[in-house]
């Protein structure tokens, strides 16, 4: 594979801590979806509903089909703003 065709995979917050990694580059395969990336990298059978995902920094659905060079981010529900739980 060429360097530019790789998919960049990023984990954030508790997801990154639990799995011990934050960023990986993986091979692109035609037709691969966001959920495929999650399952391939975690060994799980599906993307859990509480895990949010983004492609190229836009929220996306789990069945979004990737293009070569895409960046995929996985993260927990967001908790920005003031500190009120």
């Amino acid at each position, binding site marked *: 594979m060429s360097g530019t065709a790789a998919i960049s995979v*990023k984990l*954030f*917050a*508790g997801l990154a801590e639990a799995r011990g990694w934050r960023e990986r580059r993986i091979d692109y395969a035609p037709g691969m979806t966001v959920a495929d990336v999650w399952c391939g990298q975690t060994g799980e059978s599906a993307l859990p*509903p*509480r895990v*949010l995902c*983004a492609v190229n*920094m*836009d*929220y996306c659905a789990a069945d979004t089909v990737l293009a070569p060079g895409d960046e995929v*981010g996985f*993260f*927990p*529900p*967001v*908790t*920005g*703003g*003031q*500190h*009120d*739980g």
Partner: protein
Amino acid sequence: MTVSVRDAPFEPYAELAAYERLRFARPGQFGASASFVGSMRDLNEGDAVTRMTLEHYPGMTERHLEAICAEATARWSLLDTLVIHRVGLVLPGDPIVLVAAWSAHRAEAFTACRHIMEDLKSRAPFWKKETTAHGDRWVARNTPGVPRTAAADE
């Protein structure tokens, strides 16, 4: 429209005054401004919290805050918006977020300021980790999954 993610403490009221001087050089350009400052409490879910670490998704954070402000500007005919959000180590009392909106009339400024803040909480990729006497824990959100859209907000 300005969005700033900071890894060092900031003084919201000084930022607000400086931004207003910079962006509204001519007196009388706006009729109303509304601002919100959120800061760190020393208590959450019954436990004393001694410090907090805020993580974000660099790039996506700025992109989404800018989108939220652009939507609000178009919807309420705002003259300007300012959002500053902390990341990194935060201590009790530290300001975490400043949201400000300027408009011709008060209704638009109040509504837009609140809307931007609520959208930020539900869509911008920030996560908080608290340090308590029981150890560190990620702050969880009760509502799962799908971020709200601006249209579904009201």
